[in-house]
């Protein structure tokens, strides 16, 4: 089963990349762009076929490694 995990910075956490991208877009002449935030996107396959099992397993992966829950939120999409 395919899983897509998006990891985003919590509100209020400093995001140098997002800021830089926003600046760069501006200097490239792209106006009307705001609140750029950069996060991570992870795709993977789990052999687990039971959706609930898979989800709880992915949750554990995020908590243990994929996200730094002090500063990041994560969201899991399955199948």
């Amino acid at each position: 089963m395919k899983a897509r995990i998006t990891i985003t910075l919590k509100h209020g956490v400093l995001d140098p990349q997002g800021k830089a991208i926003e600046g760069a877009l501006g200097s490239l002449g792209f106006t009307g762009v705001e609140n750029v935030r950069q996060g991570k996107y992870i795709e993977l396959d789990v052999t687990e076929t039971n959706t609930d099992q898979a989800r709880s397993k992915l949750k554990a992966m995020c908590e243990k490694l994929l996200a730094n829950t002090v500063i990041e939120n994560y969201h899991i999409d399955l199948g």
Partner: protein
Amino acid sequence: MKSAIILFPGINRDGDMRKALESVTGTRPITVWHGESELPNVELAVIPGGFSYGDYLRCGAIAARSPIMADVKAKAARGLKVLGVCNGFQILTEAGLLPGVLVRNSGLKFVCRQVKLKVENNRTFFTNRLQKGTVVRCPVAHGEGNYFADAKTVARLEDEGRIVFRYVEETNPNGAVSDIAGIINEAGNVIGLMPHPENMIEALHGASDCRPLFESLRVAA
């Protein structure tokens, strides 16, 4: 003092650190491989700089979860002194031994240059040979040394005198909040800093400003 250098794949400033510890403290540190589950009997564990696991995912994240770190945490809770430099600092924050995180430099570029560090707290095992307020020259070499923590945490660090090193004279190379270059934990036995004192200890380095930091380790023993 008896010390150990912890080696993760991708760490690359272990040689520099070994040289510094040996030449200044006079004792050669033991090297411990990340896969081992137990730290030998030492007073100080050092995590040197580098790119453990390529800095992939988040710098320090993967190393922080390797077997040896469990024992480091356990022994740190019982007073083991721990020093993390650069990637070592990042690993310590990822392991939860120090608060905050180190994010991408505000300039988004890797930066290798000399900065000025002010010793804000000289009552630590790594700074006791220097006067409070001393300013030392020291190089940095990192792409993700931008220290960040929420306002509450930073305020606590300030109040409790847990900011050990601060960038001064407009030399903050990465945009770190409150010019924080290095901090210590509440119990006072875990220190992390981004700059590389091991690269500033002899004439060849242009100055030996950072020698006293390593001499402090002897006193602390």
